[in-house]
């Protein structure tokens, strides 16, 4: 089974978020909690779908990631673009924050 994390969009502004350790949501994919087997994945998704999450997130789902020494990296083009922002507008989305802090 692929290594997975849970992602969703934040209710208030639709921004891409991930379920992190301890149950908080983060906009940094690197901080997402990794599920390494089916049981973990089901439990992770169940947490994201709990009734108390409905006022925070929309449409949580499991996504495949590459586990780079414990750091999850999105595997598909779609998830890479979701994680960064539009590839044609690098001034927008999470990639813009990274660029700003580096520059």
């Amino acid at each position: 089974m692929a290594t997975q994390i849970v992602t969703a969009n934040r209710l208030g502004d639709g921004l891409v978020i991930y379920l992190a350790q301890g149950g908080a949501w983060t906009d940094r994919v690197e901080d997402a909690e990794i599920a390494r087997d089916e049981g973990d994945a089901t439990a992770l998704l169940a947490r994201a779908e709990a009734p108390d999450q409905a006022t925070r997130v929309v449409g949580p789902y499991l996504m495949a990631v590459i586990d780079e020494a414990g750091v999850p990296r999105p595997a598909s083009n779609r998830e890479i673009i979701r994680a960064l922002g539009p590839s044609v507008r690098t001034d927008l989305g999470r990639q813009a924050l990274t660029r700003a802090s580096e520059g």
Partner: protein
Amino acid sequence: MYRYDEFDRTFVEERVEQFREQVARRLSGEIGEDEFRPLRLMNGLYLQLHAYMLRVAVPYGTLSSQQMRKLAHIARRYDQGYGHFTTRQNIQYNWVKLKEAPDILADLAEVEMHAIQTSGNCIRNVTADHFAGAAADEIEDPRIAAEVVRQWSSLHPEFSFLPRKFKVAVTGAPNDRAAVKVHDIGLQIVRDARGRTGFKVIVGGGLGRTPIIGATIREFLPKRHLLSYLEAILRVYNELGRRDNIYKARIKILVKDLGAEAFARKVEEEWSSLKDQAVDLPDGELRRIESYFAPPAFENLPAVTSGFEAKRFEDRDFARWAQRNVDAHRAPGYAIVTVSLKPEGGVPGDATAEQMEAVADLAAHYSFDEIRVSHEQNLVLPHVRQSDLYAVWQGLVAADLATANVGLISDIIACPGLDYCNLANTRSIPIAQRIGRRFAEIERQHDIGGLKLKISGCINACGHHHIGHIGLLGVDKKGEEFYQITLGGSADENAALGRILGPAFSAETVVDAVETIVDTYVDQRRAAEGFNDTLARIGLDPFKEKLYAPH
């Protein structure tokens, strides 16, 4: 009985307040997403990859300067300073916050705009020829019929629950700029032998998974019977259309399955019982709507303006722009200006708030306050005096809106694709940008001549790839972006679907492939022969040989 103006205003204002409450209830947790989703979609609010997207209707593509300024304001105040004009003459904002969406709708309502009928299985925003009311070849202004249909469809609750979404387009000219043959219903204004105007009715066209060119089911429908006839079509569709399978639910499948003739007979039968009931608009009401679209007070001008001609001599860049971006107007001494939203390497259809304001200012000064959005993702200043063309061009140059490429290979239609769209397989925009850069030299583009290239990021075909001379469809192959190429499509009065050339090309090789296709065409064409004519004469093989020959 028809009091649409008041009706519309009250209706829209009520909808905004209703939506404000619904959003508050969603944010507080009183209602969940399952309940809320259809409500937000009814108000044009989608959830895309990165954020909420609001799709705002621009009925039949017509905007005033004031409305355009409001769109700019919304881009700046609530979004990231830009908007995206779509192939359905709408505008989309990509970075909307849920709690601000009702404020945006309230702002829009101030200028009589809204986002209703931009989603769901209803009759969507009616589109029309973007040169409506201005084109030299126009028989009658198609926006009158478009407005009649818009009012009628927004009043009819039973048409809010059709088997699928339903798109209507209207053209008033024999040269079809509204792609009426690829809509659920296409209406073309025609004259009969006695010189009366009416509609040719085309049904069952569409793109997407099953692309079909619409069939003409009536050569001439007297104007006053428009609504009863449309109602007859929709009743037949509502009764027989398939609701069990989303892929088979569009009217095109029904027309195809029944056969156009049998479908037409059913419509005529239905219509015979409807046409003498009070379904059609009373004449007075029709005249009232017609009066909204009365032409502006054109001056009496000579057909050719010497100043304009002189400037064309003096300034090559202006001459090149005038050659591609200016079209003939029905009123002597006037011209239609197309404002290209396809700068080299830009995002097709995107405009910044400042650019929207620049266009609004130019429209206020030089185009009777009128702007149009074209389904080709450009803007139009429909009524410019020829003597003002140079000033308009200079204004556009200053706003970075004067690319002289309308109808050329870099005037690409591209859907948002995987950079924004939740349904996408692949990206579209970066391919458009790379093709634009590859053909950046404007002389080369002018030498190649008119060529329509269209790109979609998935089979839904929002980028109209089937009807491009060259069409690119993004397909995902094991996680890699590939592009299937079709050749020979057309969106005009000779509407045709492109034919698949062969195996798809990777993102790396597809721009080379496009260049090879263009070079082959230029090599093989006779005199000023257009792309599709050359293709019809020589077939696909010469293109295939160049593209797939072992190197």
